């Protein structure tokens, strides 16, 4: 289903719309606002302010969108690519709800322009489960009830996943530090700590 939605980004409707405005090359992949004429790149290499072609590597796939240069990575993922796992909560780098991995490192996708993510590998929470099998961090979150309303959960999952990738045997303090950039209003922290340590243990003993 998710794949279908991703593919449908190039819809017949937006294609025809593109033809209609005579801007086939750039408006082909246009989402909302595609009718805005894309600006020609100025000679000095600057982009914008109109729609700009942005090529991203997301979850191992190359994805192309038309978005204004000011558009954050979080908004492109959520609004253009329908990858809504990353949540925009504070929208200014203080809560960690929009955490994704950039070349394996956790970053706040609300604090990064989509343009600046070009040339890097972006991984979102949607890519952790493989073949319908939850990642050990995800399984542990479910089993230990490390979520309530669940809105901050994908961000925590990504922070803990990144921790275990660089440190398979963390202490409780290292777990706390690894998600110190994430906040949860429901107050699931004790469960998150428990889940992180359980996931680490499960992975060390061969999943």
């Amino acid at each position, binding site marked *: 289903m998710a794949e279908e939605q991703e593919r449908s980004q190039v819809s017949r409707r937006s294609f025809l719309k593109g033809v209609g405005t005579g801007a086939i090359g750039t408006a082909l992949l246009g989402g909302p606002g595609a*009718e805005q004429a894309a600006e020609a790149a100025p000679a000095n290499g600057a982009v914008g302010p109109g729609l700009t072609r942005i090529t991203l590597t997301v979850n191992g796939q190359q994805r192309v969108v038309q978005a204004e240069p000011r558009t954050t990575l979080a908004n492109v993922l959520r609004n253009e690519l329908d990858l809504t796992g990353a*949540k925009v909560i504070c*929208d200014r780098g203080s809560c960690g709800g929009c955490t994704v991995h950039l070349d394996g490192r956790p970053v706040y996708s609300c604090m990064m322009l989509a343009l600046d993510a070009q040339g890097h590998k972006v991984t979102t929470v949607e890519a*952790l489960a493989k073949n319908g099998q939850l990642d050990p961090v995800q399984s542990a979150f*479910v089993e230990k*009830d490390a979520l309530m309303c669940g809105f901050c959960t994908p961000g925590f999952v990504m922070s803990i996943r990144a921790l275990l990738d660089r440190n398979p045997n963390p202490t409780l303090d290292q777990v706390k530090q690894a998600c110190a950039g994430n906040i949860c209003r429901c107050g699931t*922290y004790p469960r998150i700590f428990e889940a992180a340590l359980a996931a680490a243990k499960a992975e060390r003993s061969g999943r």
Partner: protein
Amino acid sequence: MPRKIKTTIVENGFEREVEIEVPDGPPVSWGDPKQMRIIGKRVPRVEGPDKVTGKAKYTADVKLPGMLYGRMLGCPHPAARIPAGGVDLSGAERIRGVVAISLVGPEGKTCRYVGDEVAAVAAPTPELAEDAIRAIRVKYEKQPFAVNPDASRTAPQIFGNEPNVAPAGNRAQGDIAAGLAASKATAEGQYTAQTRLHCCFETHGHVCKWDGDNLTVWASTQAVHGTRGDFAGQLGRYGMKPAQVRVITEHMGGGFGSKFGPRIEGIACALLAKKANAPVKLMLTRTDEQLAGFNGPGAMSRIRAGADASGRIQAWETSSENYGGTTGGGHSANGGPYVYTAENVKAEWANVFTNTGPGCALRAPGHPQGCFITECMMDDLAAKLGMDPLAFRRANLKGNRLEKLYLAQWDLGAAKIGWHRRNAKPGAGRGPKRRGIGMASGTWGGGGGGGAEVDVVIHRNGSVEVMNGTQDLGTGTRTYLAMIVAEELGLDLKEVTPRIGDSVYGNSPGSGGSTTCPSVAPAVKMAAVDAREKLLAAIAPALKAKVEELEIGDHVIRVKGDTARSLTWKQACARLGMSGLRARGGWNQDLRQGGVGGCQFAEVEVDIETGKVRPIKIVCVQDCGLVINRLTTESQAYGGIIQGIAQALLERRHADDLTGRILNPNLEEYKLTGPMETPEIEIHLFDTYNKVSGIGEPVVIPTGAALANAVFNATGRRVPELPMTPDVVLKALGKA
């Protein structure tokens, strides 16, 4: 013969006790918890996999073809008059694809806080929506304002017809002068609990989609059916009826008392969608949420209290204020010493209005504030008497129907925290870092009420659905619907599919006052019982038995005492008609219990040189009736305590007297408890009855007060104000 019972109802999150008439049917019970296979066990929530993979779609995640992005424009001034015709939308409308509406009526509008709603736009992208609100021109005639209570006392009237300090109630019992005369020791104090923000992580918001005259709304709400009614009511001038509105809340990212209806942004979203002839998603920005998405009113009490040599409170005299911004408030210490009793009481309370956003219920509305105020005075007076704070409290439960419960809970809590380790005399420790232990108690209604209609369908292939319109705020509602039905029908949890969060399902009350479980779970049980009876009646002839001779076991229906005559669950269901079997259940008062008690004990370390308070450990002992899901119930207790820590140590909204602006409408300077601030927490669920009760709110009540008393025990100085940030602590210690 119908009988009358007392129950708690909730309106906009505020609970009120009312007497209702209920039919007097045969008594129903949950049965023996020890015999249960699923209820009371630790069951991971059924939507967990969707929430950890990003699959779960919240309102904020909904994306429809052609959908526009909405945005609100709020007033930038704390008080301003917008004259008739003072909103010029033309700049916004010149941006391609943008529609805009004014929220100012033909007679103009008086804006009373920064963020008060002025206009709304919808645009093809969120970025263009931001451009559009910047392009709207508004004529503001600035007015005098007051954003803090002290300034409000002498400021011009915020509401033309009401004083800024408005008396709201009073209470008198006995003779205060006589009570003070009979006291061996007296204490005076002024205690202030801050106004707090809900900080729902999913902001208030909706997606509205019209199909002709019918409106579908995805809403981040605590009341699916209530929101449907409100949309229809507020759009009534367009001829809307509830039947034309469908509300969907598959998942929602926190409400905490602030999400009970469409509010102005929901109606704006519907109107924008109509005007644009396209679906519109309008989620408040974080800034708008913090400015205008409600607050939990602050509270202050000046108290003079006295107790006799036995520790009995002889006098409790209070003058209290509620700080709800442009609305009134209320707290549980307004009328007296909260869960304790006193021989003589004199109390008066008032609302103090300010030019800040409106107040509403915030998780146990009024109780964390009132608990803090009361419990501070309890410890201060105990210290004056030279009594152990627990011994002093034991002397003041006379007439409280939870007396026995509290006494047992206090013994347990004291043992678990190591009460004997506290400073016998507050502040007796040495060195720069001082430890202390304190405690506090709380109470809550949480008995639920009628109105839920739950459907259970058994299909011919043996699968089962349970349906109700209710919403899951993160408390585990979806999971216990399935648990209760699986328990009753002898099935595994995965064989029952719960469907909630949609107004097409049976009616459900709003989730306020910790009433969801005690309102919905009884109806689920009744529906499951109905389904069970209907199934047994349908297959009794095949087993050549009477219905009352049959029993349901683990995936089997058999004749009691005759193992030869049985059908497996699948065989039994295969005998049903084409459409299976449908059963319905309503609320049953015999299955729920209101009026819970709980206490928390806290240990802290206070750095008396920096003023930093570090929570070390919190022990929670909470009565919550019959526990349906132990795992999620404990999670709620953790959550309540972690929010209580934020109330005690972190959360402060800064309203600037000079400009009237809120200086921190965000999540980095408005501080919440983070992973690093989370101490060791120990939960003890104190099961008391075999009936369900709500737990969402009671667990948040005592935390702040227990921490405040632990700080008092550590330092010997009362920190009379929340949050106990380093500056406030140093001031109380006389070092700032």
